[in-house]
């Protein structure tokens, strides 16, 4: 079934995209077309269309409540969990319409996520990080140990927790918890990682480490990150999308967005003159 859907969608997609963004049409890892999203009666996203390139970091910026988190959460269908959410439009990842395929599990294994607030489980640090791999059926202790260590190192938290892996993860400070959350997502080695202000609770040191990490991961992974920190967006991202009231106002190379935005509102926002 999937194949037919894929085939037919591809054509639609190609057709659409060729009008907009010729050279990147075939490489787009994630392709969003005309996405509308409603929370019950309230519309939160308006005709959002954007192509996210593979092995790049895409930053989503915009004022609070503009729909960044909402958009991010459609990419791994986390909004499915909320009652009364209606979605129209198309989202394709690897040329597959994620709302037509029914394999949400595969989607979410492929598209990892780090949330705005740390949401560790009431388990040990080790079990938190090993959670995803275990659920995929990895039982081997050595392998798990390896995954957990790598992931924690990757999230720049290994040294702080290596002696207390078996203690509750909820005893950590906010920043520490958030970094374990990142480790937990990394442990799944997803293809795409969605991050919703992952560093908003981190100190500059950890933030830098995570930024470095993101820069590193970019080699293999596609990353979409929501951030309120302009500098961060400027530092780490390749492309930036500016959201306002549920619409994408401008989407371009990060350097363009910050140095020569086309839209007045973008300029106002990135220079802090907005509102």
């Amino acid at each position, binding site marked *: 079934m999937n194949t037919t859907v894929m085939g037919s969608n591809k054509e639609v997609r190609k057709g659409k995209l060729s009008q907009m963004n010729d050279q990147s049409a075939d490489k787009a890892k994630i392709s969003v077309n005309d996405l509308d999203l409603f929370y019950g009666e309230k519309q939160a996203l308006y005709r959002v269309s954007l192509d996210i390139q593979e092995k790049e970091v895409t930053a989503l910026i915009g004022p609070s409540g503009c729909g960044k988190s909402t958009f991010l959460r459609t990419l*791994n269908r986390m909004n499915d969990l909320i009652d009364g959410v209606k979605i129209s439009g198309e989202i394709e990842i690897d040329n597959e319409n994620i709302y037509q395929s029914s394999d949400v599990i595969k989607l979410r294994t492929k598209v990892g996520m780090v949330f705005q607030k740390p949401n560790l489980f009431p388990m040990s640090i080790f079990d938190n990080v090993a959670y995803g791999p275990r659920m995929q059926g990895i039982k081997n202790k050595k392998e798990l140990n390896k995954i957990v260590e790598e992931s924690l190192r990757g999230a720049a938290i290994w040294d702080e927790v290596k002696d207390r892996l078996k203690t509750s993860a909820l005893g950590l400070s906010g920043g520490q918890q958030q970094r374990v959350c990142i480790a937990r997502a990394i442990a799944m080695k997803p293809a795409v990682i969605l991050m919703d202000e992952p560093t908003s609770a981190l100190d500059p040191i950890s933030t830098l480490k995570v930024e470095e990490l993101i820069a590193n991961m970019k080699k293999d992974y596609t990353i979409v990150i929501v951030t309120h920190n302009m500098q961060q967006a400027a530092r780490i991202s390749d492309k930036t999308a500016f959201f306002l009231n549920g619409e994408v106002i401008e989407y371009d190379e990060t350097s363009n967005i910050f140095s020569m935005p086309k839209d007045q509102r973008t300029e106002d926002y990135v220079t802090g003159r907005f509102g």
Partner: protein
Amino acid sequence: MRRFKDNLLRGLLWFSAFLTVAVLVIIVGYIFYKGFRLINFDFIFGDYSPVGHGGIWPMIVTTIYTIVISLLIATPIGILSAVYLQEYAKQGRLVRMIRFATESLTGIPSIIYGLFGAVFFVTTLKLGMSIIAASLTLTIIVLPVIIRTTEEALKTVPPAYREGSLALGTTKLQTLYKVILPSAMPGILSGIILSMGRIVGESAAIFLTAGTVAAMPDSIFSSARTLTVHSYLVTQESGDIELAAAVGIVLIVIILVLNLSATFISKKLNKADY
């Protein structure tokens, strides 16, 4: 003024707790005071005899049978029902209906359950007056207790846990038994403890379905007498309050042991998570 109100409320809180504890201490004290004289090895482990006070070992065994069987059936069904209501169902007519049904079940007097069990399980399903017929009846009685308490426990699990788990590509089922149920465990357990209390304390529903045979049951298909039914008959027919109280002491000890083991198990479960 605010101070005064605060202090008044605080006083009421202390007073209520004191009252509760006092009442409970008096009741337990009374039961022990009345029944303690009869407690000895023969009374507890001896075989029943219709003359004198008789041993109550067959009733102890029957009581444990009913607790175990009813909980074995009611706990999974109850928890899964609650899971359905909280985690799966879309709020709608069906859920309202189920919820209404469970709530109504809590209010049905046990005598009606007894009559129903006697007609449905004993006669229609041809189980005869038996431990199994009583246990099935008890299952229906405690089901709403387990459902309701489990539902409340599930509600207290932060949505962030669900999101966190699902975002890692796990199924609802995996999320359920790895994250949600473990963090809801204490609440579920208190529901199970309440249910044990209800099972142990039941008389009307049991004597109509299991009967009052004062002998060691051969199997769960035997008719038999639980401790509570025993103390009920004794109170009702011979007015031997000492004997009823002595049986009460044994019941209290059994419940105590069950509660402690339930708590122990939950601690164990929690440890296993770390």
